């Protein structure tokens, strides 16, 4: 159990590290959010579960924590993305398409 927990904590920290690297390397807000959300969700998930395995009395609580993280993490990044888009922060210039923007323009016209 303890070994499994340690492996999970290690995997979690690797994903958290990759997530931060993604935030550092990605070119614009939206791509940064992509890297941020996914990597931190699985990273935190695996880390918390690892702690639960290492200390059996935390296991149930860690599962509740995981549920809360899975529920709230995507909502917060969605909200940040929405707010950035409304504030008019542009997509990086390599972007191929922006349907949402076309829609806004049509409504204004």
């Amino acid at each position, binding site marked *: 159990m303890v070994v499994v927990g340690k492996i999970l904590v290690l995997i979690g920290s690797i994903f958290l590290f990759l997530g931060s690297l*993604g935030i550092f390397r*990605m070119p614009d807000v939206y*791509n940064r959010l*992509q890297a941020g959300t996914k990597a931190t969700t699985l990273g935190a998930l695996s880390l918390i579960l690892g702690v639960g395995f290492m200390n059996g009395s935390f296991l149930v609580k860690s599962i509740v924590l995981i549920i809360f993280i899975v529920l709230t993490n995507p909502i917060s990044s969605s909200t940040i993305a929405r707010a950035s*888009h409304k504030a008019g922060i542009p997509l990086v210039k390599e972007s*191929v398409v922006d*349907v*949402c923007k076309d829609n806004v323009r049509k409504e204004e016209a």
Partner: protein
Amino acid sequence: MKNFKGFIIFVIVLALTWLLLTGSLGKDELLIGGLSLVLVAILFFGYSDLYRALKITPKIILFYPLYLLVFLKELIVANFDVASRVVRPSLPINPGIVAVKTSLKDPLSKLILANSITLTPGTLTVDVKDDTLFIHWIDVKGKDVEEATKEISRKFERILKEIVK
């Protein structure tokens, strides 16, 4: 009471959360839990309407775990996908915002769908307007609505239809 069903599910969710968090059936914990449950249920009664969309049929015993499995698989794939993009020196991204149509009507169903999309490979929900979800896609494979819908939301929607309205 028109949303009685939603209220019952709301109370069950609250009670379960409390029981799992305290992890004990002692007299004191149950008393405090019961009191706070009543308080929270009164304060947020209006929001319990949201849970009405959940279907309660024998089928959900099969489809809840199925949805969880699909979701977990997609989450792990998503992580390896994004991680591999991040580590590669060339940073292979091809981003854009696409629209996806959904046939789900209820706010809760759309919330679950939008959240699931956010946590899966290269997609992030930016906005929801009526039956259209605007999604930032890190590697755009199809620019029009049908293609995007097929690639992104079909796999979730199929199962979600079984568990929510």
